[in-house]
């Protein structure tokens, strides 16, 4: 009897998560379209800027990046952003160097030293610092901070002037990369600090408690447990800050003297550069050909910051495996 028995096996059911009603399909399609609009947006930015700046790239060639002259004489236009590009990098380096100790300290303070009340208060302050518009910081930097920082610069020059970094020829300490670097640092501290705080607060508490229970002090716990576990996130946060520093426009425009001459490392000299601020300062009275040159600077800036930021967010996501 059993040989005749053929069990009618139902076809294997495929569980589908696909929306089956029309309204759901519309719902998901709308969300997908909106989300993909950010991809479209980035593409559009690149396409339009590249299109408008093509004449400049074409006429200037590779010298556009590496040369250091800007001459808007309409017959023989020379547009080269070398010093500005180096200036941006220089400012970001100064800013990051100043900001990293401050932001890691503040994150450490919030998460591991302060009690809950003080910690959340300081968190609010850091968020507030992040919300200060850059034009307000520019105003502050120009009128309040610059004179003070010029004093610091003079001190540095007087005490350590034998180092080539702190050389200054004309005794004018205002509008130097040093001061602009400080302003940049003020802008990026909250970014690095909030990423670092996020990472610190999500670290495995048991890991830290275990370290403390084994008799390690604060320092060895920080050095041997917290830093190695959180380093990925910190690096990501620093890169995010770097991206912001590279693109900082208005604040730098007010506190830095833009000069088309490469200033390699004399950071106390009133001679610096920044691609974003250069665009801003030249845009007002630029003719069509020069605008193309500024667009080209925008393309360079956009590509650089996009790369830095994508790398940064990739690292930050990688450093938080608990977030899917």
């Amino acid at each position, binding site marked *: 009897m059993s040989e005749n028995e053929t069990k009618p096996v139902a076809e294997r059911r495929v569980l589908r998560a696909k*929306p089956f009603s029309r*309204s*759901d399909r519309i*719902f998901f399609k709308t*969300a*997908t379209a*909106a*989300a993909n*609009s*950010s*991809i479209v*947006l*980035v593409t*559009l*930015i690149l396409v*339009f800027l590249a299109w408008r700046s093509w004449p400049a790239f074409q006429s200037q060639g590779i010298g556009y990046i590496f040369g250091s002259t800007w001459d808007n004489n309409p017959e023989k236009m020379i547009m080269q952003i070398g010093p500005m590009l180096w200036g941006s990098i220089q400012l970001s380096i100064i800013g990051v160097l100043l900001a990293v100790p*401050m932001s890691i*300290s*503040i994150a450490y303070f919030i998460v591991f*030293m302060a009690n809950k009340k003080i910690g959340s208060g*300081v968190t609010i*302050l*850091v968020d507030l*610092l992040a*919300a*200060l*518009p*850059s*034009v*307000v*910081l520019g105003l*502050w930097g*120009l*009128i309040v*901070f610059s004179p003070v920082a010029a*004093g*610091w610069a003079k*001190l540095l020059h007087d005490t350590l002037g034998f180092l080539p970094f702190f050389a200054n020829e004309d005794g004018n300490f205002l509008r130097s990369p040093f001061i602009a670097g400080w302003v940049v640092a003020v802008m990026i501290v909250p970014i690095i*600090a909030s990423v670092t705080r996020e990472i610190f607060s999500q670290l495995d508490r048991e890991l830290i408690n275990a370290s403390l229970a084994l008799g390690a*002090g*604060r*320092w*060895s716990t*920080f050095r041997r447990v917290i830093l190695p576990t959180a380093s990925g996130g910190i690096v990501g946060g620093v890169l995010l800050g770097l*991206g912001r520093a590279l*693109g900082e*426009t*208005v604040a730098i425009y007010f506190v830095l003297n833009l000069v088309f001459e490469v200033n390699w490392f004399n950071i106390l000299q009133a001679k610096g550069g920044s691609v*974003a601020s250069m*665009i801003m300062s030249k845009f*007002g009275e630029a003719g069509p050909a020069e*605008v193309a040159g*500024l667009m080209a600077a*925008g393309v360079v*800036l*956009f590509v650089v*910051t996009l790369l830095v930021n*994508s790398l*940064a*967010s990739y690292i930050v996501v990688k450093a938080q495996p608990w977030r899917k």
Partner: protein
Amino acid sequence: MEKVITPVARPKTAEPWKQISFTNMVLLVLASVVPLGVALIAMLAGLQFELALLLVFLPVQLVVGALVGRRVSGKRGMSDAILQVLVIFFAASVFVLLVSVVWSVIQSGLSAMSWQFFSQNNVYISQSTSLEYGGVGHAIIGTLLLVTLSTIVTVPLGIATAVYLTETRGKTRSVVRTLIQALSGLPSVVAGLFIYAMFIASGITQYVGWAGSLSLIPLMLPTVARVAEESLLLVPQELRNGALALGAPAWRAFWLVTMPAAKSGLITAVLLGIARIIGETAPLVVTTFAANGTNLNPFNGAIATLPTYLYGFINSNFDTAVQRAWGAALVILILVAILFIAARVMTRSKKAKKKAGK
């Protein structure tokens, strides 16, 4: 009989690690007073404040801290004390910078404040006109108009993006997330150039308000999308599953269950997005033309905004102009503070509700 248990306060001796012996207490007080005293003496002796801070106070504090740390908790106490001193020093310097910014804006801005500073516009005002005339009324209106316009476009886009990132299993989620994160570092001037290249250079329009609004969108979108995503992620998966299991279509589950649960977070997202763009200057300088008069129509003609107003007065030799700039800065700061406090209240009330629910 029901036995009544009265809660007893935990005896203090239950936390022996919190007890500090008298000698150690004295030592700790000394450790915080001595460096200050030495630095003060050095300053009285004619040393500059910055030098006294860096070359006297900090080293003395480090040495004294290390010594006390060694006395109190042995060899490891030294490195711990040094770490703590450095952390507090750096954290305090951030605090000083922030207070300096806020304080100088408030102090200098208040001197420009008056009723007509809010109500009047900039017509017939030159750099040297006395502060009794003219104000930022037109710029406040302009800023509100442009920001509203950007918000209307960005908020649905940002929230829909967050929905895509949290509610669907789309294939491009990681790409979108990375790009959103990367867009948050988009240089603001590039956003302005983009709109300029797209609309103004191609002759579609002149400098006009809506172009400025458009240029703010790429700057606002990442903030809205990210914060909205965070808040949607906080909604427990069980809620969604429950709604779906009861037979609700996904959009109704979102509309009636997930979104109300995440409401305060979503509002926070919007508020933080507005706070992000309300002070943006560079894109507006590139795409709009600052008018002196009041313009209620962002679709036609020049329109002034607070940041461009501030930008116009900042680099001036006239005290009155600079005071106007400070005044505008204070107005921006007040707007940002209002948004911020509103966002805080939103998140606070949610947490409070949660606690009450438990």
